[in-house]
């Protein structure tokens, strides 16, 4: 629209002095400008938005980050004119175009159908398409009109899940149903737990005959009960806890770890809940089954870092949401000294805490930044020592720690789990 205003304004600015000074050169110079403006204004008056029908389809609407999705956008000219159309199917920021084209420029005859096909890779999140930008040029003039046609479309991209080996957890309380978690109670199970006097009704196959021969009274063997447990995964989403280097953050790794752990514990039959702490208190109530897994993954897909003042301290974490004496899995690099105190408080309250701690220094190693530069090497060494002390303090308060170098798979890191040195009980 404004395309005809500037030439006309300049033309007018030449004509008016030309008329006042009776200078024909000024008036003559303005003629091309005024003519240009008139032609465009006539075009504007006739220009009408093209009647396009758009339909977008996805090869799949739910996927895992890094997966490829094929997208088709069918453009049908339902009008009677044949406009020249420039169309851009704008990608949400989580998607990256890897093949094909998401834009079109050409003339569309009436009822002609043009299909754009392209392939994208998806990043974690809920990518949402909203509008398609359409620019059309009238057939015989130079005028352009722009419009945004609503065409929504939503994808769900979950974080990538890594299969894990068995992770030993020891919550103080278990549920009533059989499962994989050792309940610290005698009964039926696989691992020897202890002996006790025989009582009528006990299985005679469990009588310890050697003990009977020694003591003269019937004694039976007890095995450790295995039950399901409440496992609550807490993802630390505070910006101050995470390190960012060249666009890669420990937070992305933490999200993947939380997803893998949730999937692992759910597959074992446990009650799993999720708390994302940082942006807001995003809470998924503990539950079992595939539906719960989908809910947790959906929530993790949207997890983002935040530096809200209200959530800066781990101390403000709403522990009332967490079932008492359950297993907590805290996924966080934990850089703040005060956090040790909070973790100790959780242990004192009866929670069993497993800390999955992604290395921020591993990001430095992955890029080879510490090679050759002595300052970086020194900084790296200080960071490692500080971290060692930090993790030692955490183990000292009764926390099991998985020290995870993000350049190796989480599965490997889980094999080197450091169990708590002490167990603290609240009296």
């Amino acid at each position, binding site marked *: 629209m404004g395309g005809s205003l500037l030439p006309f304004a300049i033309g007018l600015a030449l004509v008016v002095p030309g008329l006042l000074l009776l200078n024909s*050169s000024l008036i003559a110079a303005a003629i091309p400008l005024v*003519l240009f403006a008139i032609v465009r204004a006539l075009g504007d008056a006739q220009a009408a938005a093209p009647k396009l029908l758009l339909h977008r389809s996805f090869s799949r609407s739910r996927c895992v980050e890094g997966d490829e999705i094929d997208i088709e956008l069918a453009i049908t000219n339902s009008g009677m004119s044949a406009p020249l159309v420039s169309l851009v199917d704008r990608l949400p920021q989580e998607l990256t175009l890897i093949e094909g084209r998401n834009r079109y*420029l050409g003339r569309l005859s009436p009822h002609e159908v043009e299909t754009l096909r392209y392939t994208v890779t998806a990043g974690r999140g809920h990518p949402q398409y909203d509008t398609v930008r359409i620019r059309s040029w009238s057939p015989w003039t130079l005028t352009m009109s722009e419009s945004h046609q609503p065409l929504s479309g939503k994808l769900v991209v979950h974080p990538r899940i890594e299969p894990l080996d068995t992770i030993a957890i020891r919550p103080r309380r278990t549920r009533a149903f059989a499962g994989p978690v050792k309940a610290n109670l005698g009964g039926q199970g696989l691992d020897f737990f202890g002996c006790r006097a025989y009582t009528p009704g006990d299985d005679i196959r469990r009588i310890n005959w050697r003990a009977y021969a020694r003591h003269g009274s019937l004694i039976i063997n007890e095995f450790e009960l295995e039950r399901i447990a409440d496992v609550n995964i807490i993802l630390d989403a505070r910006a101050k806890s995470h390190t960012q280097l060249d666009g890669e953050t420990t937070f992305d790794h933490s999200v993947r770890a939380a997803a893998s752990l949730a999937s692992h514990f759910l597959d074992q039959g446990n009650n799993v809940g999720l708390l994302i702490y940082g942006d807001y208190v995003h809470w998924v109530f503990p539950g079992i089954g595939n539906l719960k897994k989908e809910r947790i993954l959906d929530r993790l897909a949207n997890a983002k870092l935040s530096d809200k003042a209200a959530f800066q301290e781990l101390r403000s974490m709403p522990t009332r949401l967490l079932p008492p004496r359950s297993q907590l899995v805290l996924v966080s690099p934990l850089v703040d000294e005060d956090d040790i105190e909070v973790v100790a408080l959780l242990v004192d309250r009866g929670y069993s805490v497993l800390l999955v701690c992604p290395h921020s220094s591993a990001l430095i190693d992955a890029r080879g930044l510490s090679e050759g530069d002595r300052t970086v090497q020194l900084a790296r060494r200080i960071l490692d020592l500080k971290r060692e002390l930090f993790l030692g303090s955490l183990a000292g308060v009764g926390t099991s720690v998985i020290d995870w170098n993000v350049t190796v798979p989480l599965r490997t890191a889980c094999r080197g789990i450091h169990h708590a040195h002490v167990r603290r009980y609240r009296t």
Partner: protein
Amino acid sequence: MMTPSVVLLEIGAAILAATGYVYGITELGIAGILLAVVSLLPLFPFAASRPRLFDLLLAIHSGLVAAFALLHRPPILCASALAAAVVGWDVGRTAQLLADAGSVDRRRFAASYTVRALAIGGLGIALVAMMQIVRVRLTFGSGLALSLAILVLGTLLLRALHRNGPTKEQKEQEEDPSPQQ
């Protein structure tokens, strides 16, 4: 599409520089050369997202043309320079709008668009040439008639702009591009 635009702007500047030297107005000739240098700016990557740059170039061209016209240099040269500049300005702005289109499509579109824009510019120059041949005498009466004609055209132009401008809803959508649920 940016190259044809720059070529046209350069042609406009070259005409002005040459006119300046031929008619012995060295200052304006140098100004024309400087304008030719400045007109190369759209070729740099920073210009891709600055539509105002073309507006500025057109304004400078117009200013220089006005200076020549005030000194009663041949109208056909002034009109040619400004016609080349306005077509270059238009093609450049369109190139910015099409920056995200595919290169093959863009090349095809660029040729036809530039030809059409040149045709309108050529028509303007032809009108000026015809005016010189016919030798319309500029008097108070003809000036008044011309003023009225321009006034009417201006009104029509503004009405057309008002009618086809973005609606209130479109403006709101542009200001707040929140995704639709």
